[in-house]
């Protein structure tokens, strides 16, 4: 291992967090609630250990950040430890800062930089890149990619993802009619057409000509920009568009008018890698685009992305202007299950029926810890007549998905997952429902490896299925 040094500038900027880290008095309560500690019994994979490692870096007791990289990188960022901690040490956030420090001290792989700094902020590039690689995989070329190291060079994460996701979609959410009609583009086009028609009307009137009937009708129907935006999260768009389609179906079922604004990735992957500048850039762009629509609610059907968008203000603590703007936007963000409860889906579910075996609900960490959302999904599910909702033991524990974590730390992720899979299979359920695509992929791959026939569905997918089951 080559010796590296702490980036002094970055260290100085972190000095103000010294007291936050020092608020840990090493009582150790967090350890037995940390999934990576439970999987390994190792202090270096515990919240207390990670905080002490970061503290040692800040205090100059450890001078080589390469030594602490694994300790800091293996945090799942689930946030459970903070809910246990009497002094509420925000370990997950501290680990993002620690990763930022490590990145600046020893650098990041080029491929990762390319993806996060160049591709993620460019939705169309992202779209085509994914489409290309998914297409190649369907053609059976992925072994060639792997061999040639193309995917590997592009990003180690994609190579691993390629192994985990076995049936990738070729049509993304955008490519489906159900979504197309609600794209922001369509709204913009309608608004533009309305505006043009008005102009036309004015000029026709000015010329004293007869106004065509069709033009009058067109001018009469002023396009209303919906108050609800559906935040097109990457998982529901690209990895499993059926989630996005199901959510749209639920919105239509509730007769809600909505728009799908054209947004970038929320920036969560960048945050996970501690690339905080990229997080801010992406957040700013998304905030600008959301401000434009003046939405009352911005619905995200992935708990992780919803939580991240709600946390935008945390990244602008030193920037009063953006703090204000990000706070306003983040307050409009809605997580799926509480949104559905709010809009009265429960009444409809009561008229439906489920007779296909026990159902278990898996809480994504970013729902139960990031947003303290635990009861709304259960309220939805237990409203369904005939549905037996079975609890999963150790429901507090992360599944090990953690966004790209499962690709980057496959061994640790697998160890965390195997405990979760055992707890799920112990419930004897037929279906597991969850609301994060990372969890969904993780659980599905774990169950499949175990030869289990338990089906994993996103909450939207499941509810659509239920609603089609009317008595």
């Amino acid at each position: 291992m080559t010796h590296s040094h702490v980036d002094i500038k970055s260290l100085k900027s972190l000095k103000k967090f010294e007291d936050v880290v020092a608020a840990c008095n090493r009582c150790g309560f967090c350890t037995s609630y940390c999934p990576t500690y439970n999987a390994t019994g190792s202090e270096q994979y515990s919240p207390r250990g990670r905080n002490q490692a970061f503290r040692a870096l800040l205090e100059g007791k450890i001078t080589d950040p390469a030594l602490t990289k694994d300790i800091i990188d293996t945090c799942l960022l689930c946030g459970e430890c903070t809910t246990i901690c009497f002094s509420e040490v925000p370990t997950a956030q501290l680990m993002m800062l620690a990763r930022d420090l490590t990145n600046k001290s020893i650098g990041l792989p080029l491929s990762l930089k390319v993806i996060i700094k160049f591709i993620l902020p460019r939705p169309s590039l992202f779209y085509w890149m994914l489409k290309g690689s998914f297409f190649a995989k369907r053609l059976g070329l992925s072994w060639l990619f792997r061999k040639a190291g193309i995917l590997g060079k592009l990003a180690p994460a994609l190579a691993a993802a390629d192994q985990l996701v076995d049936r990738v979609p070729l049509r993304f959410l955008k490519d489906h009619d159900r979504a197309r009609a609600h794209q922001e583009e369509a709204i913009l086009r309608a608004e533009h057409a309305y505006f043009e028609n008005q102009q036309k009307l004015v000029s026709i009137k000015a010329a004293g000509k007869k106004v065509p009937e069709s033009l009058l009708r067109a001018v009469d129907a002023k396009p209303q920009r919906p108050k609800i935006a559906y935040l097109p999260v990457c998982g529901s768009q690209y990895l499993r568009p059926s989630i996005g389609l199901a959510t749209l179906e639920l919105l239509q079922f509730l007769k809600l008018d909505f728009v799908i604004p054209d947004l970038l990735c929320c920036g969560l992957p960048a945050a996970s890698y501690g690339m905080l500048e990229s997080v801010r850039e992406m957040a700013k762009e998304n905030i600008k685009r959301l401000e434009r629509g003046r939405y009352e609610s911005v619905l995200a059907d992935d708990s992780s992305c919803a939580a991240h968008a709600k946390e935008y203000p945390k990244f602008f603590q030193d920037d009063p202007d953006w703090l204000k703007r990000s706070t306003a936007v983040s307050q409009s963000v809605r997580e799926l299950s509480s949104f559905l409860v709010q809009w009265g889906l429960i009444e409809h579910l009561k008229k439906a029926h489920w007779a296909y075996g026990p159902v278990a609900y898996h809480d994504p960490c970013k729902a139960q810890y990031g947003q303290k959302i635990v009861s709304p999904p259960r309220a939805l599910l237990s409203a369904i007549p005939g549905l037996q909702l079975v609890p999963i033991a150790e429901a507090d524990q992360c599944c090990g998905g953690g966004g790209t974590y499962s690709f980057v730390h496959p061994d640790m992720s697998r160890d965390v997952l195997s405990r979760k899979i055992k707890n799920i299979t112990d419930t004897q359920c037929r279906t597991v429902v969850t609301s994060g695509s990372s969890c969904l992929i993780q659980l599905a791959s774990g169950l499949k490896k175990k030869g289990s026939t338990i089906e994993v569905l996103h909450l939207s997918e499941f509810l659509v299925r239920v609603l089609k089951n009317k008595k």
Partner: protein
Amino acid sequence: MNSSLIADLVTCVGEDWVLTNPADLYLYSYDSGLDRALPSAVVLPGNTDQVAKVVAVLAMYKQPFVARGAATSLCGGPIPLQNAVVIALARLTKIKKLNKEGMEIHVEPGVVNLRLQQAVEAEHLFYPPDPGSQKACTLGGNVGANAGGPHCLKYGVTSQYVMGLDWVMPDGRVTRLNVEDPGFDIVGLLVGSEGTLGIATGMRLKLLPLPAYVRTMLVSFSSIEAAIQTVTDIIAAGILPATLEAMDSLVVKAIEAFVHAGYPLDAAAVLLIEVDGDKPAELNFQAVRIKELCDKNDCREFRFAKDEAERAKLWEGRRGAYAAMARLAPNVLVEDGAVPRTKLPEALKKIQEIASAAGLKVALLFHAGDGNLHPQILFDERNAAQTKIVKEAGHKMLKACVDLGGTISGEHGIGSDKREAMRWLFTRETLSLFRRLKNVFDPENLSNPDKLIPLVSKAVLPPDPVVRIGKESEDGFGPLVPQNEQEMIVSVKMLSSQTKPFGVQGARTKHGVHEHAVISTAKLNKILDFDKGNLTLTVQAGALVQDLRTHVEKAKQFLWVAGEGTVGGVIATKSSVTPPLRDLILGMRVLLPTGEVVQFGAKTMKNVAGYDVPKLFIGSWGTLGIILDVTFRLFPTPPKSTQAQTPVPFVFKDIHRRIKTAFDPQGILSTRTSALTAEEIAAPPPAPAGPNAPEPSEVDEAMRKIKDKFWM
């Protein structure tokens, strides 16, 4: 670090489970307390066999090592001094077997205390020791530290629940020990030995039926003094609640800010009292009595937890008190002194005086019912001058507890932090015995080195040299009946000086010695102290248990020792079975065959300072030393059932022989471990042939005088 040692460790556990990265090692340098030391490597065995293999390898290299659970110790217990290799046991988390009918559970050492509680509660069973750190601490650590907790007031500490241990000796040999084994209670010695005598890789724990009813009371007071006086009154009134916890306003505010359990924020002090049992009427009666006593001390608010959820919240808060201190300051020094319960108000006053003299902020948290005090001094270790003041004040508080007849640790242990304070509590002779015991188990001083016992220039002292006076003699003695303790000591010193074999007997109803000289404890039969307010009884070993029972019952208190005979005899032959004698003895003074007097324990309900040597005397058949006096715990109610038994003889094994060398380096004390036969009881022991004519010397003259006085 020796690379071939590392390679051998890797062979034992695999490459992934041997840590040498300096940053990883740094994370094994601390516990929840203040002391730090870097290990030279960390090994994480994946099963119990691997633990033994690892220890064998380390022993081969003479490499010190320390076992570690979750490192929630507050006294430096798992800190790797001497660059020890850390053997982390957190991967051993299997609950191996739950025997519901027998109410026992067999677990690995890495199982977290709370996980065990949850697992057995599902079966309507109950594991009482509940240390504040129960969310994280492991049962291996609990056994090492003889952990306590709020519920230990009624139910007793960890050692009452450890029925058997799979033990890896410091040389790597594995043995299984049970409380039921004939002979010394070695399990009792190992519990609380803080990893200095070896490593537990499995333990068989006793469980109780979950009490059917619980009533939890939250009482607030305008002063901490009033709260503590209430505790003293409750105990003195003969009520034994399940818990009796006291907190001051600083603690209450810190925990309430996190748990929102409804603790009163305006009170100066709060008591959390719980009574439990199977008869609701009895609980109500106790609750009414408790309320009367609270009212008598002008309590402000008195309320019951309305449901299980509120009760759980209140307890979550109480257990998180140490953790919550982190809201107030980056570091907390928690002391752990214990005093006789009647001394609580005085101890409180002393602690407050010490804190204010040093200008320190102290939060007060007491297992008040047990007389166990946890003053928590708030500071920031980044301020070196302040840290020094804090440590000094902490030591002063402990000294104050010792001065009040208490102890330096009720439940946290000694570790590295309180090592030197052991000198205040134990005599040089007792500390020497501890060193010899350590030497018996760990002659190379490898297992958690430099802990528990104050350091001396050499790690292990040889037995104190015995000055020989007079000549050896082959002839036997008749029963020697010293009239008082001083005579007993002098006569044993004399026997020791002549390396003369001898034995000890009490009322000669169970055990005696026929072959050698015999010393009788018959005349050492006085009640030394009957502390009604503290519910303790200190008596000389020759007192008859049947008389003692009658005596204390006059004061409506109960000695839970069954059977008949002298206190020494009942203990040495383990003839009182139910309730277990091992749960009743708080302290003991012993005369070793070397003539040294050693003492253990105190009049406190909890005490984990030093090795739990009194346990070894239970079932020792007089082979280790002469019990001089014993402090018993008394109860306000009679035992649910009692059972005495005919003493069961046992055969000395290697481990017994080796333990005996620590007590009796000369090997002069009888090794007879069987009851007297009917004929032997009928026939008196051989008459003494008379003392040898010794070389005339001053000492011998003195001896002769004594002998003349009490030869029978």
